[in-house]
């Protein structure tokens, strides 16, 4: 385990004048050199956490620890932490060079050293040669890069990014996601990224904190959170999903829509009411009456990679399914899914209880890499083929055996008739 760089101990934040609590008893530890994301809707308190780390806001209660030192009373300019603001906050009265050089100039670093490091920093964000450019003449993406270069020039311990990509258009945002991730990995600086965009959070982070109403609802790796959301809020917030009310009959057996299904979860009371999540990409279509149940296609949207199909079952529950095939609106088809696709969420379960239960009942999928995965798939396929061949062989063997027996019987009969004939002749 790497060194802890930032720790929150029971931090809360209340605005006295309006008596609103924006952070409720937040505790967490962040390790050095990782990419963290605080994900939540606006007003969930994620930016407040960032501002408390940066020193722009004071925590009402609790301890904020940076690099083993309590920094609650340390002013913002004494913290080895830099922020990239949503509006970039580049100084319009300075050119690109002076903006990037700001932190070093303040420290009184020698001019030659500044020039060297500014050009290094600009090279890292691929803006070399832009030194003399005026800030107002830059595009959104270029401003973003200058803001990054300015923040990394004196290698802070932690870089805080406040909705930093939100102002960019879709294509540029995707490019910047790759670049930020690469930059973070090559610099080894701890990044704390705040966003309301779940896709962005899942794409870039080592670890995601999901926030709602001043509390951390769930934290984990992006895959953990996507595959095992703790509650309705998270399941709904992260990706698209089908969420249904159900009942846990017993371990590994769940009931919803008046039907019992095999599942892989357990550790709940018998007949406990729960919620079931099934991701749209885990469901496939079958012929009517051949799946788990039938649905009627209502609408579909073409999403590029797939069709997003909305269908209703006989209980009028809405089902969202991803399919590469185009559906005919109004047709009735069957739905099928694996027991692993059913994820069970208990109502009002705390994060600790949830983690313990998941550890006990759900198998962690190991990352094997693409090549390994292809190999495994190939091996499975080969095994399937061998199985089929073997079966076919066995069938033929059986057939030959059958043929032999028939032959034998026929032979016997022939012999017998011959015998009787010869008998008659006798």
């Amino acid at each position, binding site marked *: 385990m790497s060194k802890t760089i930032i720790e929150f101990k029971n931090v809360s934040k209340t605005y006295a004048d309006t008596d609103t609590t924006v952070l409720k008893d937040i505790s967490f530890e962040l390790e050095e050199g990782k990419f963290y994301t605080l994900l939540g809707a606006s007003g969930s308190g994620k930016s407040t956490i960032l501002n408390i780390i940066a020193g722009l806001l004071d925590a009402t209660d609790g301890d904020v620890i940076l690099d083993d030192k309590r920094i609650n009373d340390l002013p*913002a300019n004494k913290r080895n932490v830099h922020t990239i603001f949503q509006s970039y906050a580049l*100084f319009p*009265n300075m050119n690109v060079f002076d903006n990037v050089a*700001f932190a070093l100039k303040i420290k009184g670093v020698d001019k030659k050293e500044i020039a060297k490091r500014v050009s290094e920093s600009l090279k890292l964000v691929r803006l070399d040669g832009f030194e003399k450019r005026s800030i107002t003449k830059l595009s959104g993406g270029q401003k973003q890069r200058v803001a990054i270069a300015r923040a990394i020039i004196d290698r802070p311990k932690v870089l805080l990014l406040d909705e930093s990509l939100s102002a960019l258009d879709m294509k540029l945002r995707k490019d910047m996601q790759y670049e930020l991730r690469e930059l973070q990995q090559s610099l080894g600086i701890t990044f704390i990224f705040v966003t309301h965009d779940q896709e962005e959070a899942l794409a870039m982070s080592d670890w995601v904190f999901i926030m709602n109403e001043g509390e951390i609802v769930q934290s984990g790796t992006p895959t953990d959170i996507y595959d095992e959301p703790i509650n309705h809020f998270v399941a709904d917030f992260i990706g698209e999903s089908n969420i249904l009310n159900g009942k846990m009959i017993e371990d590994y057996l769940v009931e919803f829509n008046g039907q019992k299904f095999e599942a892989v979860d357990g550790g709940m009371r018998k007949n406990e009411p729960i919620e079931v999540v099934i991701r749209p990409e885990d469901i496939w279509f079958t012929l009517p009456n051949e799946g788990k149940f039938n649905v009627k296609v209502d609408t579909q949207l073409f999403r590029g990679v797939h069709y997003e199909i909305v269908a209703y079952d006989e209980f009028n529950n809405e089902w969202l399914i991803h399919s590469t095939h185009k559906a005919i609106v109004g047709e009735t088809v069957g739905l099928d899914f694996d027991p692993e696709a059913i994820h069970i969420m208990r109502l009002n379960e705390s994060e600790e209880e949830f983690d313990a239960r998941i550890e006990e009942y759900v198998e962690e999928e190991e990352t094997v890499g693409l090549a390994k995965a292809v190999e495994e798939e190939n091996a499975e396929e080969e095994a399937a083929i061998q199985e089929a061949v073997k079966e076919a062989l066995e069938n033929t063997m059986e057939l030959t055996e059958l043929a032999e027996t028939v032959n034998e019987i026929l032979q016997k009969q022939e012999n017998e008739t011959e015998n009787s004939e010869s008998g008659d002749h006798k």
Partner: protein
Amino acid sequence: MTKRIYSVPYFLWIVFFVIVPLAMLLWQSFFDLNGHFTLNNYILYFSSGTYLLMTWNSILYALIITVATLVISYPVAYVLTKLKMKQFWLMLIILPTWVNLLLKAYAFIGIFGKYGSVNNFLQFLGIGRTQILFTDLSFILVASYISIPFMVLPIFNALNDLDDNLVNASRDLGASAFQTFTQVIWPLSLNGVRAGVQAVFIPSLSLFMLTRLIGGNKVITLGTAVEEHFLTTQNWGMGSTIAVVLVVAMLIVMRMTKERRD
């Protein structure tokens, strides 16, 4: 077409109240007391020690008034932007401009006079009555007081438009409060300061009422000189010459304090 019709009053105004008076002023400045065309007015102005001293006085006092106003107004404007009901407080500062200048001047005569409230207070402190009215100090004080709203307003607007995140970013990047002020806040509010300086310095060059009522005519500025020439000595030519010099000086100041865009 209709747009042109709407602009007619504007052009009429500009022609009759700006261009024609300026042209008449210029024309008048080339005539002596007897109505003969001459350049002597200008020659006299630039060779006479009295006029040059008066010019120097005008510039010096306008400068002192501007600096004093700026020193008071900048912190005021800055504090105002941080207040909750900033528009209300701003209005309170602008309010005195609604009162006639002459009335304010008379009010100050009452306050600074020998038996005015300030002297009463000094008496109470045991310092004794002092001459306050008709001193340079009282002149500068009152002139600055009158100019403050015109300085506060543009600076307030500039500071109010300043993105808080720029200040945050500066602090975040390691700058102390003082460094943030010199590197970020001051440069970014300079346009407001320039506008304020224009609004205070230029009128201060030609102040004449206050020089008499509060300054007791001890300070003679170009404004006083113009008034004297037109009303007392009836030398309109010389008065116009001084006025032309003032106009040119104002143009120079406006040029120097022009808003910079890049």
